[in-house]
């Protein structure tokens, strides 16, 4: 079960995908839908998140907030 969780600021995301290879558990992917600016934003596709924050620290736009259960 998930130990971590991320919250994505969809409207701030530019869909660059730099975070996707940074994730060790393949938790995130780009959505088929787009945000108001027309970018395919980031979405969570499973609950394997461990809360390592790798995705958040490579994100150029700081769209990801990370939580990890103690």
């Amino acid at each position, binding site marked *: 079960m998930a130990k971590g*969780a991320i919250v994505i600021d969809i409207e701030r995301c530019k869909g*660059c995908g730099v975070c996707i290879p940074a994730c060790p558990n393949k938790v995130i992917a780009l959505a088929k839908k787009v945000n108001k600016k027309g970018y395919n934003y980031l979405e969570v596709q499973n609950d394997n998140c461990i809360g390592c924050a790798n995705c958040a*620290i*490579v994100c*150029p736009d700081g769209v990801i907030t990370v939580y990890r259960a103690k």
Partner: protein
Amino acid sequence: MNREDIIKPENLVYRRTPVLTENIMHYCPGCGHGTAHRLVAEVIEEMGIQEKTIGIAPVGCSVLAYNYFEVDMQEAAHGRAPALATAVKRLKPDFFVFSYQGDGDLAAIGTGETIHACNRGENITMIFINNGIYGMTGGQMAPTTLEDMKTSTSPYGREVQSMGNPLKITELLAQLPGTCYVTRQAVYTPALVRKCKRAIRQAFENQKENKGVSFVEIVSNCNSGWKMTPTASNQWLEDNMLPFYPLGDIKVSK
């Protein structure tokens, strides 16, 4: 444990630093500028120096940097950020002063200011983003453009005989007695981001001890100028930029 139980304030691991403003950055998707801005802002937050920091914005893609940092900022004429940083630091010696420049600004039009500020040993932090291209004006060749690299003004690749050699300005500055800390970093993987943040922290800490110029080069991508996707440009950076611009500390004085 479900998602609602994990998303609680006491479980927070990482959030966007409040030293950055709420404005959405104008940089292209995947641009290293955003990450570099965030690292500088996080270091300012961790050191608790937000009220005592003054940043100098350049001309180039990061010309609007003052819209994104929640600290006092001053805009410099093209290439003149080190000169302005000198003035600010001399007038307010107990403030932390940093300049933030790209390669077209720092290594082309501002080479004179850069070299002399470093040679005088001004007690400032200089952040230098090197993507080997003039990003803002449409991807023209810069002094830092690699040999055989295609840009809009070198469409067949940079030919050294007629266009000159790429400039390793960071190695040049390390030779000068006024610099105390000269390093080259990158921000395209989590490990490199963590390392780069430590380097920026060191560069700001040095100002407390009046040691001279601390210079942090960040080798970055320019996916629109290089005409690649963000992830492909990061791969290209690793394969082509890093062999010529190797990462690591170039000068650390005691």
